[in-house]
């Protein structure tokens, strides 16, 4: 049977959950022959909004931008190491912007047909203000979406 996707994108946001999604994507790409991408989005939109709301001062925004860039570099290096450990090629990239918009654009520009993300929020509140970037991606990205639960099974599969 033909595999119904050719290009997988794993979204990284600096969380452990997104690393689990990446590990699952590596296993999936390895077993299907799909091309694998990983993108870390440096959320500059949130930084700008925090300055506008007077929660951050400009100096803080600059410091956090540097912190986020370092975090992205660290996570993408880790992604390369994980892929390499499974002998899987991976294309990694850090992009600045609003996460769900950056991912939409990346999916369109690169012909991605499967996006892998970490868990979406449990429905514990009806407040739209508490909607996460993962939720927004799930709703807006123009391709199939794989929501990867963060559980020890993935780590065991990966290391097994």
């Amino acid at each position: 049977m033909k595999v119904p996707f050719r290009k997988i994108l794993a979204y990284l946001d600096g969380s452990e959950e997104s690393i689990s999604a990446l590990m699952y994507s590596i296993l999936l790409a390895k077993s299907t022959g799909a091309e694998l991408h990983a993108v870390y989005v440096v959320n500059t939109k949130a930084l700008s909004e925090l300055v506008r709301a007077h929660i951050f001062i400009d100096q803080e925004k600059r410091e956090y931008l540097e912190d986020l860039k370092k975090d992205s570099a660290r996570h993408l290096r880790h992604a390369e190491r994980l892929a390499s450990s499974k002998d899987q090629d991976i294309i990694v990239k850090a992009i600045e912007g609003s996460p769900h918009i950056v991912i939409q654009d990346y999916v369109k520009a690169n012909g991605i047909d499967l996006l892998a993300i970490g868990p979406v929020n449990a429905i514990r509140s009806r407040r739209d203000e508490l909607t996460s970037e993962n939720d927004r991606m799930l709703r807006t990205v123009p391709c199939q979406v794989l929501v990867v639960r963060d559980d020890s099974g993935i780590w065991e599969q990966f290391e097994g």
Partner: protein
Amino acid sequence: MTLLETLDRDLIKVPLSSADGSSVIDELVGLYAAKQGLPQAEASSIAAAVKAREALGSTAMENGIAIPHAKLHGLARNAVVIGISRIPVPFGGKEGTRVFFLVLARDDSPAEHIQLLSSIAKVASSQLFVRMLLSSKTPQDVYQLFFE
């Protein structure tokens, strides 16, 4: 961790007893320190970090909410401490502040810290939500508001 996952009903105080900004920070940090069983010296160090950040520019917003914060080395997990004052407290904004969200964040998880602050900023931008927060009588009332 999301804001909802970070909230802890033991880290909510209604009403606050302090009448000035510096004392409010001490009171909120004190609540956190008591819950964590931290020694006084560590609590003082956390409060000093928060006050040092406030000294660079007040985090008071226009709607009577302030989000003092600090990133700290060695913190086990991010924390949000909420305090609501019956009277407006001078906190550097044009008007007094009644709702305080103290955010203490690990220094090695910038993305999570920013997500936490953004979530608080978003709920704080809802006038209805702020009105409900201000009318809360108990920590349980405040906690429950986030889950409705």
